[in-house]
């Protein structure tokens, strides 16, 4: 209906309207996403004198400061000790629960799924509070079990050597249910015919789970591994709060994020804090790349639907 074929005025109008539609979001995107990201990068090369940044004045000094800090190696070691337990336990536990639930999708398992799911509502200081009660051999619902295991005070349970395990329990409690639900959704999307064919061919339920279901939900497993890895290295509230309650057992610099916070607000060294934050970000990205490589996440033939 437009006479001139080359110029399209309505299109240009549409463009202007769309820009208005995205404008508020773009402002927030720049102010609270892009700008802080760039600032973090710039600060990691900057020197702070009396809280004022001298841009790019530091070169790589901040990174050297972080690496040579005696608490850095310790924090990284703590984080590694935690990851070694929490990642396998998390992935295998979630996978096991999802597969077991999926072996009998009925009302009973639906109730179970909901019970596993609701603790996802507990986060931050509330998780720690609950954990302190649960680990207390005099108060929590597991106190008889803890007594049998020979614990008498909460300090007996919360020991330095056991902290990675305790944090694993905490993160599994609060995080596993959501992943179980997601994996279950993934299992539900596997075609019925493949499973029935496997059964006809004589596969037992564990074999169906191992040879049919597991490979088909591989993308979900990889997705969980990436996000759990990125989340686990960002531990802050748990050590921060358990440290205060326990006195000296867990230091105030237990996790890299705590150290980063201390650099910024205790020592006033925003540059080193930014350098450490970026380092953690890099480690998270590296982990993601490794997982993608390792599991062929993007091999799309594995996606059932």
């Amino acid at each position, binding site marked *: 209906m437009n006479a001139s074929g080359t110029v399209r005025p309505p299109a240009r109008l549409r463009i202007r309207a769309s820009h208005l539609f995205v404008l508020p979001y773009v402002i927030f995107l720049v102010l609270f996403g892009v700008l802080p990201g760039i600032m973090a990068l710039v600060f990691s090369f900057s020197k702070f004198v009396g809280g004022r940044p001298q841009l790019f004045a530091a070169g790589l000094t901040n990174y050297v400061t972080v690496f040579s800090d005696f608490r850095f190696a310790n924090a990284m070691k703590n984080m590694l000790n935690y990851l070694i337990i929490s990642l396998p336990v998390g992935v295998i536990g979630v996978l096991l629960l999802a597969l077991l639930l999926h072996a009998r999708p009925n009302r009973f*398992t639906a109730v179970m799924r909901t019970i596993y799911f609701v603790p996802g509502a507990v986060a931050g200081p509330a998780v720690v509070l609950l954990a302190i009660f649960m680990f207390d051999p005099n108060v929590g619902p597991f*106190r008889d079990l803890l007594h049998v295991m020979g614990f008498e005070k909460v300090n007996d349970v919360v020991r330095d050597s056991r902290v990675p395990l305790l944090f694993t329990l905490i993160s599994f409690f609060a995080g596993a249910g959501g992943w179980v639900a997601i994996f279950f959704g993934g299992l539900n999307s596997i075609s019925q015919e493949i499973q029935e064919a496997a059964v006809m061919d004589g596969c037992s339920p564990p074999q169906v789970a191992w040879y049919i279901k597991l490979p088909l939900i591989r993308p979900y497993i990889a997705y969980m591994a990436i996000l759990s890895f990125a989340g686990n290295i960002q531990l802050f509230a748990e050590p921060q709060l358990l440290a205060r309650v326990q006195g000296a057992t867990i230091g105030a610099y237990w996790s890299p994020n705590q150290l980063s916070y201390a650099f910024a607000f205790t020592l006033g060294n925003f540059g080193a804090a930014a350098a450490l934050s970026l380092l953690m970000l890099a480690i998270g990205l590296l982990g993601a790349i490794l997982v993608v490589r390792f599991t062929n996440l993007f091999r799309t033939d594995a996606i059932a639907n």
Partner: protein
Amino acid sequence: MANVTSTYPARAVRRPFVFRLYRAIIGDLGVAGFLFWLIILIVAAIFFGLPLLWLLLAPSKSDRELLSLSPLAFGSLGGYGQAWANLNTFNKGAITRWAFNSLLYSVSSLLISVLMTLPAGYALATSRFFGRRLILTLTLITMILPGSALVLPLFLEINAVGLVNTPWAVILPSAFFPFGVYLAYIYFAASLPKDLLAAARVDGANEWQLFRFLGFPLARTLLGLLTFLSFTANWNNYFLPFVMLNNTSLYNLPLGLQALITGTSALYPTFATDLPLKRPEAALTGLLMVLPVAIVFLISQRYVISGALAGATKE
């Protein structure tokens, strides 16, 4: 669906009830397999369920009863009232203020983020315009940036405009919700038929009218999902307010709970104090923080999963 009748030869004879019961419950798992299945699921249910059940019951008991009664015993309804009254002695009713602040911060961030998320997602999904790809790319990048990496620069930014220690320091950064925009983008891209939009445009509707009368009415499910995700994240937000606020009257519930854990003898009677803050009061604070989100979780389990799945398949 895992009922594998097909593996058994068809028989005209009706099997005895016990046999049918056996097959319905144990079936292809076998007795050992079934016991393994049942025990693991029950143990998991205890692991996930008992702590929350305990938290629900704990404030009904006095501190002494928490030690003497069975962990899952119910004290009395009056126990909750007593714990609440005790809690209110802390900083002259700070708990009420914290709960109010939590609500204020969460709802304000939610409203702001939904108001900008819906139109942005709609525009990104329905029209091509200059900068669209850039916006989508930046959204994806900021989505994967861990919040803690941005908190320090955010602090300096907010500090530079003098908003540290005001509600805005928490509300504005939390209102930036790139995952929500991404979700809205894929939602509109999948649910709005292109032909319908084209037809409406031919009929002379402008972009605002298209959004108002075609996009918005379709966005009900999306709105529920956005509300859920944004509200729960903001309600539980800890690190950002921890850095931005140091005035106790501005604290939200997570910060208040933290103050209660670290600043009082509620959990461990390390120093003598006149405050009647003990374990039941700490548990009640935790319950106040957990219960609203837990209820929302219960109601909207399906939404949550579809939302998480939308993220899972973003490749």
